[in-house]
């Protein structure tokens, strides 16, 4: 249940693109055609699903304050968390390189269709962001970290698929010249983000903070509940 909750939450509510603006550069650059968008989206799901659990292990057994306990009692005070950026990015760069080699070996056609997008993933902030959010939100188990990685990947995939489909259609519309291309894409993304915010009411029990609040204050009508979640979001953003 916990896993399903985190899964849905990372796809819809904490969507990488619409809630935290991660991976926007490749999202804007690669979303002109549905085909390429699908390729990149699949690669992002794959890389996130591998790197988030790997970085979770790194964080748990190497970087956290006191993580080196398994080496012996005298290492228990060590805090290497300042190294996490460099360790995470090293893992990601290595994994991307590995994935590239494996894909080239076993499926040259997929490799050709992805082209430069594979190495680009190494500098996609959604990937590093996934690991950093995993660290800052203190996800407790390896299983949950995997679910979080896959879920955020699927969320990103959905976002880029949707915008690519809209951009293919909007080519036939009469957009003001100065707004064509990038400008209108930004505005559509904003509208989609507003749409995705309404998913915030989907899992009111998912957030621990909301849960605690609900225990103290009884909320009867559904509308009021949604309002509260929205108010919570505002607080987070400030």
């Amino acid at each position: 249940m916990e896993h399903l909750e985190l899964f849905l939450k990372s796809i819809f509510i904490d969507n990488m693109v619409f809630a935290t603006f991660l991976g926007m550069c490749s999202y804007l650059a690669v979303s002109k055609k549905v085909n390429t968008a699908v390729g990149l989206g699949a690669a992002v799901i794959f890389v996130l699903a591998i790197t988030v659990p790997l970085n979770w292990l790194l964080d748990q057994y190497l970087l956290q304050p006191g993580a080196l306990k398994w080496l012996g009692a005298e290492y228990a005070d060590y805090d290497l968390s300042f190294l996490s950026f460099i360790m995470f990015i090293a893992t990601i760069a290595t994994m991307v390189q590995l994935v590239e080699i494996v894909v080239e070996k076993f499926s040259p056609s997929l490799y050709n269709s992805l082209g430069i997008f594979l190495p680009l993933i190494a500098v996609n902030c959604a990937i590093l962001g996934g690991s950093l959010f995993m660290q800052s939100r203190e996800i407790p188990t390896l299983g949950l970290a995997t679910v979080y990685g896959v879920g955020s990947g699927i969320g990103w995939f959905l976002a880029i698929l949707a915008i690519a489909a809209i951009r293919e259609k909007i080519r036939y519309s009469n957009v003001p010249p100065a707004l064509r291309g990038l400008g209108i894409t930004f505005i559509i993304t904003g509208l989609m983000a507003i749409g995705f915010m309404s998913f915030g009411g989907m899992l009111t029990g998912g957030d621990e903070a909301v849960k605690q609040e609900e225990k103290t204050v009884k909320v009867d009508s559904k509308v009021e509940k949604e309002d509260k979640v929205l108010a919570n979001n505002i607080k987070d953003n400030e």
Partner: protein
Amino acid sequence: MALLSKKDSKLITDPLADNNPITIQVLGICSALAITAQLKASIVMAVSVMAVLAIGNVVISLMRNIIPSKIRIIVQLVVVAALVIIVDQILKAYSYELSKTLSVFVGLIITNCIIMGRFEAFALANGPWRSFLDGIGNAAGYGLILVIVGFFRELLGSGTLLGFKVLGDPIEKTGLYAIGYENNGFMLLSPMALMVVGIIIWVQRSRNKALIED
């Protein structure tokens, strides 16, 4: 004698307008949008990126002849990550509250595509001084957009600028609030950052028709 030759000063002025990293090159957008609800956070982010980009450009430019081209991405990532760790530690030491607001987005400077883009496109082919100027110019272009977005979002969203109440007090109904003005809380939410950038792009491209895409 001018401090900078004409060619050098172009390195700084170009990215500010017609070759802006965010609105024209479409780089480094992720962090630009997420932290702009407050003007102060935008300025700190812009300064951090400027420091990392200028110093990183110089370092890469000094090493450009000894980096094997096959592993250059990893070398670049390591240089950026090291610089970002320094910035992050400085922020935590001197401005802990702000570093909490920025949260993971300081770390995400590492994957800010402006930085990789400038390393690849400029520092690997130019000397240290010109790379330094290029770094400053591009980071300034990025910072300019951040400050504009941060300015409008904070002014319209909470009626303050850098924390000062410029439009009057919303609770005691002074200033603009006395004649019925209300804060637009929507500006503080993430979708409005996208809208504001979209509008900036719109304004920029209607002023310079050469930039219009087809």
